[in-house]
């Protein structure tokens, strides 16, 4: 640790606090406080964008007035305009971000739950390996959007889900959201299974042999010896999948799930402010992706074992092996 405060570190902390402070307070306002009558109410702005708009108007006016001096104040006006827009759409984006986060996190975890057995069958399943291969190639070989359309329009899932009482009531999202979860889970499971298969195959064969020599059955050996190593090896690839999924989840917008992209594109098409709206959208996605990468890095360090997989493990083994 250095004594000088690290500027980059400081800025990261400020940005993280601002980003998550905004999201968390917004969700708290919408779901916890609004029903109690506290705060501005569900989906209502904290601040009024009007002063920012006025200020922007002033600068635009000034630009014309000081024109001969060639002082460019237009950019300031543009920034103020953007800020006004940001204040205006922030509540909607926060709600979209909630859908994006839940969609991503739930699909990733459910996908993992399917991917692990799938990869094990692929590697150790003998005659059943072809089934896992078929599933993986079928899912990976067809477009995600097509899969979502089949689930949404082609099957009776929507009808069936609509009959479930809780769907679409209060806190619980509409049926389209659940269809998206199913789609992303299936799609993600195929990709994750491939990552895990690669990691499984990188575990030395002798590990399972040694486990069996101790008297563990093959499945116990896989469970207690091979998989704990595999999942550590798979974390970097898994991080990749998470980062992809945060952005791929925007495809759910095409089946009317009100996630980030859907919300932003709706605003853009009504206000016609495409560039500023999608710039704001990009900032929110970047915030989510950076958070996800950081969280996975922490997970990797937390489960690191010297000499195995993750960065920390590799480093420790190197220094202590010398």
């Amino acid at each position, binding site marked *: 640790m250095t004594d000088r405060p690290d500027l980059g570190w400081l800025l990261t902390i400020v940005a993280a606090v601002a980003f998550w402070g905004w999201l968390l307070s917004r969700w708290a306002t919408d779901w916890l406080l609004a029903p109690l009558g506290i705060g501005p109410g569900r989906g209502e702005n904290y601040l009024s964008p009007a002063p920012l708009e006025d200020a922007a108007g002033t600068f635009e006016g000034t630009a014309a007035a000081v024109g001969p001096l060639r002082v460019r104040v237009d950019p300031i006006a543009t920034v103020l305009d953007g800020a006004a827009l940001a204040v205006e759409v922030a509540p909607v984006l926060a709600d979209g971000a909630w859908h994006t986060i839940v969609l991503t996190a739930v699909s990733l975890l459910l996908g993992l739950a399917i991917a692990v057995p799938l990869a094990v069958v692929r590697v150790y399943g003998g005659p059943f390996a072809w089934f896992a291969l078929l599933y993986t190639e079928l899912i990976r070989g067809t477009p995600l959007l097509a899969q979502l359309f089949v689930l949404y329009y082609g099957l009776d899932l929507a009808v069936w889900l609509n009959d479930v009482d809780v769907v679409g009531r209060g806190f619980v999202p509409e049926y389209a959201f659940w269809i998206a979860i199913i789609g992303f889970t299936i799609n993600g499971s195929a990709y994750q299974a491939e990552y895990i298969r690669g990691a499984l195959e990188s575990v030395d064969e002798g590990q399972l042999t040694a*486990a069996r020599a101790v008297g563990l059955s093959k499945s116990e050996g896989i469970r*207690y010896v091979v998989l704990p190593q595999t999942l550590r090896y798979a974390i970097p690839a898994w991080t990749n999948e998470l980062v992809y999924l945060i952005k791929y989840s925007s495809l759910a917008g095409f089946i009317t799930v009100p996630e980030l992209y859907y919300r932003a594109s709706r605003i853009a098409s009504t206000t016609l402010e495409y560039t500023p709206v999608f710039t704001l959208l990009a900032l929110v996605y970047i915030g989510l992706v950076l958070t996800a990468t950081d969280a996975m890095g922490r997970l990797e360090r937390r489960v690191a074992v*010297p000499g195995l997989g993750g960065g920390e493990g590799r480093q420790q083994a190197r220094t202590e*092996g010398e």
Partner: protein
Amino acid sequence: MSRETAGTADDREPGTDPLLRIEDVRKSYGSEEVLRDVSMTVDRGDVEVLVGPSGSGKSTLLQCINRLTEVDSGRIFLEDLEITAPETDPNEVRGRIGMVFQDINLFTHLTARKNVTLGLEKVRGMDREEARLRADEELDRVGLADQADSYPAQLSGGQKQRVGIARALAMDPELMLFDEPTSALDPELSNEVLAVMEQLVEEGMTMVVVTHEMRFARGGATGITFLDEGEIVERGPPETLFENPDHERTARFFESIRHD
């Protein structure tokens, strides 16, 4: 020289106590015959050293004994249990036979102690505390009580192999198989492993050892078996095989490793 051809149950020496019997074992990988009619008996408390050129089938024979490899024909018995019978549970066999590997194969993600407790908890069904005490006992036995919390990557090759031995011993095996336990190690690191093995010899452990360490064979072995091209060429006490082998091939082999 009844031991030279000792093999089937019929020609046991009187007063012996056979623990391991191997009868006419054959094994091929594809068209390559790795073991051809191998028969031998190892008595309780014996230390049998298997030697031979690489590819002579020594390691395959060890793997057949705890069913990491299945034989093509022939039978192997551990006392009255027919190891090779299809209805025999391989996990039961492996629970009674310990194995130490050339490439050590410690569980990479577990500490030395956990390497030992895994089998105790999952195979023997011990609770965590009991298994921990037992593991620490075994680690102490191989002189590594102070390394119980180290991960394999933090141990030297010799230390790793000693943990490998402790892991096998913790299961209370009746028979220990060693598959070239020191050949991946520097000579100086081999010594600490050989010392642990010699200690086991003194404690009366029954062992089948594949090794090129002739010091160990001279010091600890009760019998030496020379295999070549999947056949037992010659079998006898160490002095006889070293000094006065019956077969030209045996003599040539010992001559060649002496010059290593």
